[in-house]
C-alpha cells in the first residue's frame, strides 16, 4: 500500500516533513524507516493513522495518512 507519512517535532530533523512510502502495516513502515535512519530506533514515537492514535500495529489501506510524532511538548 502507498501511504502518506507526516512527521512532527524532532523527527523533522531526521526525516522529511511529508513523504510517500509503500508498506503493508505500521510495523513494516517503522522497520523500513529505522533501517535507513538508525537514530529512529531508540525514539519513543506516537503514531496516528488518519488522525486516530493507534496503540497496536495497524494494516494500511491505500492512501492512509500516517503521522509520526515524538512526545508532546506544548504549553
Amino acid at each position, binding site marked *: 500500500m502507498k501511504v502518506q507519512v*507526516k512527521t*512532527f*517535532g*524532532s523527527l*523533522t*530533523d531526521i526525516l522529511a516533513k511529508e513523504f510517500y512510502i509503500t508498506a503493508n502495516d505500521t510495523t513494516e513502515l517503522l522497520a523500513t524507516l529505522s533501517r535507513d535512519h538508525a537514530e529512529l530506533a531508540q525514539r519513543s514515537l*506516537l503514531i*496516528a493513522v488518519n*488522525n486516530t*492514535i493507534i496503540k497496536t500495529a495497524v494494516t494500511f489501506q491505500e492512501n492512509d495518512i500516517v*503521522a509520526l*510524532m*515524538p*512526545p*508532546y*511538548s*506544548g*504549553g
Partner: protein
Amino acid sequence: MTKQKNDIFFQGPIPATLVAEAISKHHNKPEIGAHSIFLGQIRADQIDGKIVKAIDYTTNRELALLKMEEIREAIFDKYPLACMHVYHSEGEVRVGEICFFVFTSSAHRRAAMDACDELVERIKKEMPIWGKELFEDDTHQWKINR
C-alpha cells in the same frame, strides 16, 4: 493574528490585550462569579550553558483540534462551567512573551479553578504540539515536557 472558530492556535506571541478582551467579553454574563486564568510565558532557561531566547511551536493541527474538542467536552461534563477558552501559540515566541492562555469561568470559584488546572495539565500532556528551544547562539534543542 487570525483565529477561526474552534481554532485554538494563535500565530506568534499572545498579546496581553487579548487577555483583557477575553475578560471584557464576560461582563454581560451575570451568572459568572469567578474566572481562573493560566498563562505560560517563555522562560530564559539555561541548558548546558546556553540560554533559551525563544521557542518555535509547531503542531499536528488536525489531530490537535480533534483532541481539543474531546478535552473541551470532558471538562464541560465534569465541571459546571459557564465558559472555557484556550489559546496556544504557533511559530516563534520570545523570552518574556506569552505562548499559552487558558481561561475558565463559573458561578463559584472552585469549578473555574479546578477546570483551569486540569485543562493546563491535559493540554500539556495530550495536545500534539512541539516546542523547539532556540538558543542565543542560533542552535536549537527540542523541548521536553516533564
